């Protein structure tokens, strides 16, 4: 008989990752990545808006069928357990539990809607809640408090942060969860950085994949673009001279820019004087005829970088420490693993006086794998959750954060001199923060964000679709105007690929319908979830 197997799942805001694990020896058998989260919207608030408008049940069905999709591709032979890690919003939506307490920040709304505080301990449930055999255990790790979810816990546990002192950890994802440890106290926060640092919401942005510009390397003639080829290996691409604006077409032709590519471009542009936020000389850096980095992209990236920097500073100010005392930075998440820490420091993603940088990879998936192998760990996580002296700083409520973030916005989007910002920081005893960073020692736990991918790594595109039909002239304006090409018409039926859809932030389909008939999001409408046949790309493990 074959050994028992388990699946470890990480549900992220911009994608899902799954691993099949052999429970006898703890080895990873194979890995599967879903490139998008199936809920419409590019960030967690948009996901919540969708759930509020269309109902938690429909949202749950989207997530559950994606989970089934991934597990199907992992081809488990004797599945006995599924461990899921992610932020509390995704986990609550998946389980079909209360999520509205996470949708609103203000007390008065919570009171009006009669939403009390929700406790989210770690627990084990039977597989039938997700449509699996009831013999399959589903393990859900705890959230410390509602804002510090299992993903933040994973980031603190798996990186080694909790054993260290005077250190910071940040998951450079869409929500940028971060924590600072001073003595026994952990200060946590989450700076909604948005998906710009994952290559989304950037005009020519893309997720890591073949043709993605992922880095720039300094050379005598300018900056050599690094582009991923069809095997996801890094190849030389065009030569970009920031000063002259000359581009030499060489090597692999890029098709888009990833998050780490965005960081490299901002770093290079500022270094060579081509960019002085909010403006790029010549309004854009044209890498190929179709791929360019524009003023708007710089502003988007700047807002995300500013949110992270203001977040780090807020934690330090609230903890009453100077940034000069912080020695170690643990960088988690895919962007945190693949980004060049030197460039990350120069654009403000890492405090300047850090002397050790540790790139720890995807900690959420690691925690899921650990509890998949040892489900009893859930008890010690529940104990830790009670013991962890976490002081959560809700940035939306923090006057320090809003003060600093208004400076960040002024620096990145209005062109304010950084010296005025430094003067402000001096008032908070954080002088020198905007100075030249130190050269840290860098340790990479693994070359990949997923430390062990097993015998194969498969990347899936989301195939979850919602279909609907209603009375209208079928003029097709909605289909033409969809910026993500997520909407299609087939035989008079409308089909939306929910993973591609930008959700409530976009709504061009609804707003531009000349007849006001577009009703796919109508709550009364029947929701048909279907799947297109899977055509998958099998790829080698990739450095971004």
């Amino acid at each position, binding site marked *: 008989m074959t050994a028992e197997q388990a699946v470890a799942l990480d549900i992220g805001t911009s994608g899902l990752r799954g691993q099949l694990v052999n429970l006898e020896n703890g080895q990873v058998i194979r890995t599967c990545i879903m490139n998008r989260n199936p809920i419409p919207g590019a960030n967690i608030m948009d996901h919540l808006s969708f759930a509020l408008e269309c109902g938690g049940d429909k949202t749950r069905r989207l997530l559950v069928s994606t989970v089934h999709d991934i597990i199907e591709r992992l081809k488990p032979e004797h599945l006995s357990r599924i461990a899921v890690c992610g932020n509390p919003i995704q986990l609550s939506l998946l389980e079909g539990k209360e999520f509205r307490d996470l949708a609103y920040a203000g007390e008065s709304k919570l009171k009006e809607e009669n939403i009390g505080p929700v406790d989210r301990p770690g627990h084990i449930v039977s597989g039938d809640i997700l449509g699996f055999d009831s013999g399959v255990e589903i393990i859900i790790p705890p959230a410390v408090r509602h804002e510090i979810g299992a993903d933040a816990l994973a980031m603190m546990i798996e990186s080694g942060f909790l054993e260290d002192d005077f250190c910071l950890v940040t998951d450079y994802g869409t929500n940028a969860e971060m924590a600072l440890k001073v003595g026994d106290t952990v200060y946590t926060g989450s700076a909604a950085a948005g998906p710009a640092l994952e290559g989304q919401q950037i005009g020519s942005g893309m997720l890591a994949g073949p043709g993605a510009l992922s880095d720039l390397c300094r050379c005598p003639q300018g900056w050599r673009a690094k582009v991923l080829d069809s095997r996801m290996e890094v190849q030389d691409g065009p030569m970009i001279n920031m000063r002259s604006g000359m581009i030499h077409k060489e090597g692999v032709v890029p098709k888009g820019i990833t998050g780490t590519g965005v960081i490299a471009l901002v770093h290079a542009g500022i270094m060579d004087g081509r960019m002085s936020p909010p403006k790029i000389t010549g309004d854009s850096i044209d890498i190929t005829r179709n791929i360019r980095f524009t003023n708007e992209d710089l502003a988007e990236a700047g807002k995300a970088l500013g949110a992270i920097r203001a977040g780090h500073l807020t934690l330090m100010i609230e903890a009453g420490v100077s940034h000069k005392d912080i020695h170690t930075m643990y960088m988690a998440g895919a962007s945190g693993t693949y980004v060049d820490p030197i460039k990350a420091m120069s654009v403000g993603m890492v405090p300047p006086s850090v002397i050790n940088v540790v790139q720890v990879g995807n900690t959420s998936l690691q925690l899921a794998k650990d509890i998949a192998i040892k489900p009893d760990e859930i008890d010690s996580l529940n104990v830790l959750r009670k013991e962890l002296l976490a002081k959560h700083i809700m940035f939306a409520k923090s006057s320090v954060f*809003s003060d600093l973030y208004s*400076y960040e*916005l002024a620096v990145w989007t209005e062109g304010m001199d950084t010296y005025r910002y430094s003067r402000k920081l001096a008032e908070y005893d954080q002088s020198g923060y905007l100075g030249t960073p130190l050269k840290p020692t860098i340790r990479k736990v693994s070359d990949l964000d997923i430390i062990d991918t097993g015998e194969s790594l498969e990347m899936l595109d989301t195939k979850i679709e919602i279909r609907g039909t209603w009375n209208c002239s079928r003029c097709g304006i909605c289909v033409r105007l969809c910026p993500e090409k997520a909407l299609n018409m087939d035989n008079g039926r409308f089909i939306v690929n929910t993973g591609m859809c930008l959700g409530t932030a976009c709504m061009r389909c609804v707003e531009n319908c000349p007849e006001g008939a577009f009703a796919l999001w109508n709550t009364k409408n029947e929701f048909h979830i279907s799947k297109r046949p899977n055509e998958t790309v099998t790829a080698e493990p990739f450095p971004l």
Partner: protein
Amino acid sequence: MHMDIVMQQVLKMKNEDPVRFNKLVQEGMAAELGYLPEKNLREISAEKLKKENYSEDPEYTAVSDAVLAGKRKDVEKLVNKLIENGRDPLDIVTEALMPGIQVQCEMYDLGKAFVPEILMSNDAMQGGITICQSELGDIPSKGNIASFVAQGDLHDIGKNICAAILKANGYTVTDLGRDVSKEEVLKTVKDKGIQLVCGSTLMSTTKPGLMDTALLLELEKTGVSVACGGAAVSKAFVGTFNNAIYTKSPLETVHKADSIISGNKKWNELR
């Protein structure tokens, strides 16, 4: 250095680094034409704007300067002294406090001042206004505006900027703060004779709050509309319900407020 060598180097730079070359040429031309380099622009526009806006009384300009520099304590000290000396509190507001923030706002429009500075100047001005108000009661204004952040949301940076700029433009702003229910807005509208409500939200989950507020104000026949803004709000979203207009920037809010309050326009004329 021989002229030929200089020219050679200039040509070399033109080939190798045209961006920098063009910049140098343009800076050179600007200097020839009498424009000073960009670094001094801020001071120059500040001086020019001060001349246009400031009072001639040096005691008043001192207050204006303190507002411009965003120094609340200095402003309070100066205003208290002026009142002790028997100056008219209303004069202090219009001749000393307002010109300071006026200059700051115009600098902001020119891209020479930035949001944090507006917020600080506003804070300083409010310090002065509170003192004058306690002497004088209500201060005449262009109109009454209420500002709030939708119920469920706490992100108020944008709302604060907007309220500051409206105040700087002569409106009385009743700031209801954040996480505000529609009933609370309605009550304020009825109690305080509000002529326009400005609502904002950053979170997409809370944007229905703006719609509900606009519709409640319409239902209750208050005749007051809601100007909506904020990161989660778009023109198209505001277009889906009655009794509301979309304003992209604080400045646009001021213009639309002028049209509604002074120009007697209705929301549907401004969409």
